């Protein structure tokens, strides 16, 4: 794969010059970072060397709330605009985002039914991913066997080195993006590629060091699969306050609910909305019934809590062939109860296996 170099001060020009309706990028903010529309930020605020942002790739493809149907009473012919999305660039995505993207693609476009809204946005998305140089304290991709630098799925990947980035295209779209801005790049020197590779190894070492205390003898998949009927879920779920933050911030959680509402005009069309939902919430799987008789397959929090974890580590892999967690640690940062998935996996490990 060809490698190129772009200097720090040329990067905003590259990103803003891309043929896209909007360019989003990771920016440095007082507390950590965010992913924002780049034309509203100062170029000096680009923060691609910071740990991954709280916002993941999910929100760009699967908004928290969107209208998915309008059905007038006289005819049902209305189709939402789902095939005319303009190219959208998101820069600053990480290896964990690319892994999440594979999971969301699997659910929304690689199944029998294709979600036309997700599909249109996915088609329009241009990803500029970045190697992690500094993991967040909650990051644990290494415990899942993943690397802190993207290996596939990206359009363009940037590896931070002194004074700039080593850039690589990972797709046809990516090649076009680099070609269109060829004047901003030159071939990376072998020293720069070596520097990037050394930075990758250094980040892996940081992850190994910060997660050493959470290492388990068996893989998380095996640990969770063996703990499906465990009686410790009650105590493990004790700190959960059922806020659903983990699902909202999770780059792979994709549960949603459809609900209908009349339009303001009584004679006008009705709308169908698709909104994020969380399997931790009591209302999530509760069925219809007269007051007090609304049956739920998981009436207790411990059951819902267990279902969420088991689904990610055992059932989603069984259904879809991909691990449902990417180890980004965002749920740990968001958890109001102080939960940490790494600790949970460690706690679920049978006592005799603990090292």
């Amino acid at each position, binding site marked *: 794969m060809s490698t190129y170099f772009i200097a720090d001060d040329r990067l905003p020009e590259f990103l803003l010059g891309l043929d896209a309706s909007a360019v989003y990028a990771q920016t440095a903010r007082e507390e950590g970072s965010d992913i924002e529309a780049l034309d509203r930020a100062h170029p000096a605020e680009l923060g691609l060397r910071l740990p991954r942002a709280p916002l993941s790739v999910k929100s760009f493809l699967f908004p928290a709330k969107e209208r998915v149907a309008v059905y007038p009473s006289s005819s049902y012919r209305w189709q939402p605009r789902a095939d005319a999305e303009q190219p959208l660039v998101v820069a600053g995505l990480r290896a964990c985002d690319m892994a999440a993207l594979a999971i969301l693609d699997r659910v929304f476009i690689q199944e029998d039914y294709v979600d036309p809204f997700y599909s*249109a946005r996915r088609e329009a998305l241009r990803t500029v991913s970045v190697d992690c140089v500094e993991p967040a304290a909650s990051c644990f991709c290494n415990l899942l066997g993943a690397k802190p630098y993207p290996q596939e799925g990206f359009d363009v990947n940037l590896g931070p080195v002194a004074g700039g980035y080593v850039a690589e295209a990972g797709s046809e779209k990516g090649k076009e993006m680099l070609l269109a801005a060829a004047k901003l790049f030159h071939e990376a020197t072998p020293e720069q590629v070596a520097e990037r590779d050394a930075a990758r190894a250094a980040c892996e070492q940081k992850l190994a060091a910060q997660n050493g205390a959470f290492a388990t003898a068996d893989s998380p998949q095996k640990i969770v699969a063996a703990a499906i009927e465990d009686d410790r879920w009650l105590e493990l779920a004790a700190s959960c306050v059922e806020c659903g933050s983990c699902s909202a911030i999770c780059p792979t959680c994709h549960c949603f*609910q459809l609900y209908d509402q009349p339009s303001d005009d009584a004679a006008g069309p009705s709308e169908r909305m698709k909104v994020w939902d969380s399997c931790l919430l009591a209302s999530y799987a509760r069925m219809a019934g007269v007051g007090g008789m609304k049956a739920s397959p998981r009436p207790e929090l411990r059951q819902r809590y267990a279902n969420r974890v088991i689904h990610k580590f055992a059932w989603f892999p069984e259904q879809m062939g991909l691990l449902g967690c990417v180890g980004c640690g965002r749920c740990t940062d968001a958890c109001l109860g102080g939960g940490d998935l790494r600790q949970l996996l460690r706690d679920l490990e049978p006592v005799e296996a603990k090292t």
Partner: protein
Amino acid sequence: MATLTNIYAPAAAVLEDVIVETPTIRTFVLRPAEPMPFRAGQFVQLTLPGVGEAPFTPSSSPYEPERLEVTVLRTGRVTDALHAVPPGTELGLRGPFGKGYPIEKLHGKQVLLVGGGVGLAPLRSLILAMMADITKFQRLSIKYGARVPDELLYRRSYDEWRAHERVDLTETIDIPAPGWTGRVGLVTTLLDGLDIDIASSYAVSCGPAIMLKFVTARLLEAGYAPSQIYLSMNRRMSCGIGKCGRCNIGPYYLCKDGPDMCYEKIKDYPNVF
């Protein structure tokens, strides 16, 4: 890129007729703008414009895809509102979803159907499909229970069903009622002393979760293997297409893999009933 079908938008269906079945159950006769071929046991999402949609398995014959019936118990926001709409109303339909009953597996078998309350509705679609082709089956034995006589569904059809040579139907009510001379007792009592060759039988059951639990236990006691039991499982469903997440039993999504599940497949997962 080609324009994709909007999987979330309902197609039009006109409500042709409303049949009052019991004080709390009505059958809605729908004529979809386009015929909607379905297998018995598959379900549809029925939209009441502006109110919402809810999942129902058609209770009519799959051989009449141009005219769908759904039998609805009034039990929540959408179904309360549905019970109030008059014939002529334009409703919406999405589907059909799921796999439906494994009717080919039932060929040549002694088929036992166990229904409870409004759970007879999906089974009626299977009953009608089987009766249209009854010589393919050794026998169809229907056991049905409702709480009180007024809530026995499709009473107008019982004589016609029983008139079929290979079909028998026994009904029971949970609570004794004045004027009722039939059987009293839970539907599981109809499974005592079954005169069925269990080795060549499949049992299919639909009803409330608590009923399915006890029916399953009773069938296992009677000698059915888990692989011979099919259950129409109850879960909340929103998308119908395996994306929204809420209808899982272990790794299965009932909307895709069910809603009728072989007990063998689900028995070892938590929170089945």
